[in-house]
């Protein structure tokens, strides 16, 4: 254990002591962050989140196990009942499972942010001259990796049990990219919940209220025509329905339908509403 090094005995090779010039320091300060600073800080926060993911691989359980389990489970349980057999259910089911796993991944974003915000290091983030959106957006950028794994694995699992996407590799790729975008846009809802809730457990509970209606009251697992009229009305405006319809068109037919446009629009609207709300919620924690 070394002792403290006094100024006079600094080891050779260390930087010479510079005395702080207060006037220069004050003159150097800038009243606010520029856009380039904000982007840079967001990427550094993404770097931090990726480091944490690599050191806590159990964080990947949900994005790896859920696509594998749910795809197989839903296909064999509902396949016969809904589409007559498993094989003809897969083109309907796989995009639905993609939507569901991506949404579940979003929820984890909110829960983890809440846990993270309770840690001491967030005190320092607040005291630093950094953009308030960076600690929120950074982990979300890192989470793109999780959406990619979730969406990719679902398609892989589908192919293993007999799914043959008619849209070809390009169609599937388009479907995956669209899912990742939608997931990222939706994650702002859960990030906002994360900044508002008192505990990670509360985030989980509140997120469930969004998660279940959004996934099950949609066209993700069943044909809409089998639903009662009043439910169809909700299903048709649910952004998840648009996303599922769009990914089905992409993966199964290889066509970019109008549903893609609606999905993108819904995603942008979610970001426009929930990103500012999240920053407000985060500021309130100061």
């Amino acid at each position: 254990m070394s002792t403290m090094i006094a100024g006079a005995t600094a080891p050779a090779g260390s930087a010479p002591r510079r005395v702080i010039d207060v006037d220069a320091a004050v003159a150097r300060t800038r009243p606010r962050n520029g856009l380039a600073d904000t982007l840079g800080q967001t990427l550094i926060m993404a770097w931090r989140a990726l480091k944490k993911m690599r050191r806590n691989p159990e964080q990947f359980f949900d994005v790896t196990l859920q696509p594998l389990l749910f795809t197989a489970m839903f296909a064999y349980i509902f396949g016969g009942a809904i589409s007559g057999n498993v094989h003809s259910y897969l083109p309907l089911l796989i995009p639905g499972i993609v939507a569901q796993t991506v949404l579940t991944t979003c929820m984890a974003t909110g829960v983890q942010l809440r846990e993270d915000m309770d840690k001491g290091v967030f005190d320092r983030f607040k005291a630093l001259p950094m953009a308030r959106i960076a600690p929120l957006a950074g982990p979300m950028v890192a989470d793109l990796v999780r959406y990619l794994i979730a969406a990719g694995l679902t398609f892989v699992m589908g192919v293993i049990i007999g799914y043959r996407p008619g849209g070809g590799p390009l169609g599937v790729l388009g479907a995956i990219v669209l899912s990742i975008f939608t997931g990222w846009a939706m994650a702002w809802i859960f990030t906002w919940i994360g900044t508002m809730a008192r505990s990670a457990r509360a985030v989980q509970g509140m997120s469930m209220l969004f998660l279940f209606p959004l996934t099950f009251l949609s066209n993700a697992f069943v044909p809409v025509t089998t639903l009662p009229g009043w439910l169809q009305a909700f299903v048709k405006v649910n952004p998840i329905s648009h996303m599922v319809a769009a990914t089905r068109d992409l993966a199964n037919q290889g066509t970019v339908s109008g549903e893609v446009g609606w999905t993108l629009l819904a995603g942008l609207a979610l970001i426009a509403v929930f990103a500012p709300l999240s920053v407000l919620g985060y500021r309130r924690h100061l």
Partner: protein
Amino acid sequence: MTANAAVDAVGLVKNFGPLRAVDGIDLQVRQGEIFGVLGPNGAGKTTALRMLATLLPIDAGQARVFGVDVAREPHRIRQLVGITGQYASVDEDLTATENLWMFGRLQGLRSADARAAAKRLLAQIGLEEAASKPISQFSGGMRRRLDLAASLITRPPLIFLDEPTTGLDPRTRGQMWDTIRELVNDGCTVLLTTQYLDEADQLAGRIVVIDRGRKVAEGTPEELKASVGNSTLQLRLAPGADQETARQVVRRVAGTDPVLTPESGRMNVPLDTADRAADVLIGFREAGVGIASVTVAQPTLDEVFFAITGHGADDEAGEQQEAPAVLEVK
């Protein structure tokens, strides 16, 4: 040197619901000094510091740091102030180097500069060997030092230290003090809070004492200690000894009134020098006052508080502060 004070706060107020945590505190910290804020737990020290560091909104009053308004330009304040809290605010999942690199990058250092600064600081705080260990394996003292280093990475001209040594062992505490003194050699201004009178005495050029959100005293450590004497004679009278006689002896020999403590038969006598203890004891023998035990100690925060506010620091701070006894008689 500019005319601007490092900190110039007037009438700071912070309410938490019905509780007024900070109740109109004025602070003037000059450039290049170590300024101590002394007070017990819950006095409002941390709250005041957090307001000055833009971590809490200021409810009333005004604060400027090097002439920059804290409430109006928080972003500029954050570029001028480094804060190290009571609880280490570093990332548990990263290594020491990664932590410092990240904080440097977040404040606009280039990657290579941030790495160089991390290396230099880890050497300065004696954590080179632990540079690539995750923080979860660090001891409390190592975390605190790393936390201090994290505040220094961009060499801010003003450092806030919130109870920098609370909970540290005596050796680590000494190291922390050395680091703090070095900072001032670099031209830094330091504002520190502490519950320990001897810490304020060791480090600070000027001290304010705060209690229940209000400033109750201000001055140099010498002035503060002079108000309670340099040492304290702690006495327990033998059963049956006459307290009134004892009090008269103290008044005659030491020239002050003894401070009666809540325990029956115990009294503390403030003294200019420890030597005067012998005079008091001789006085007791001549007057026939029996004594059960005697200790000579440095004045505690409790006594400072008692002398200034008329009530104790009503928490454990006073006991922790107890300095080693110079003399103990059975």
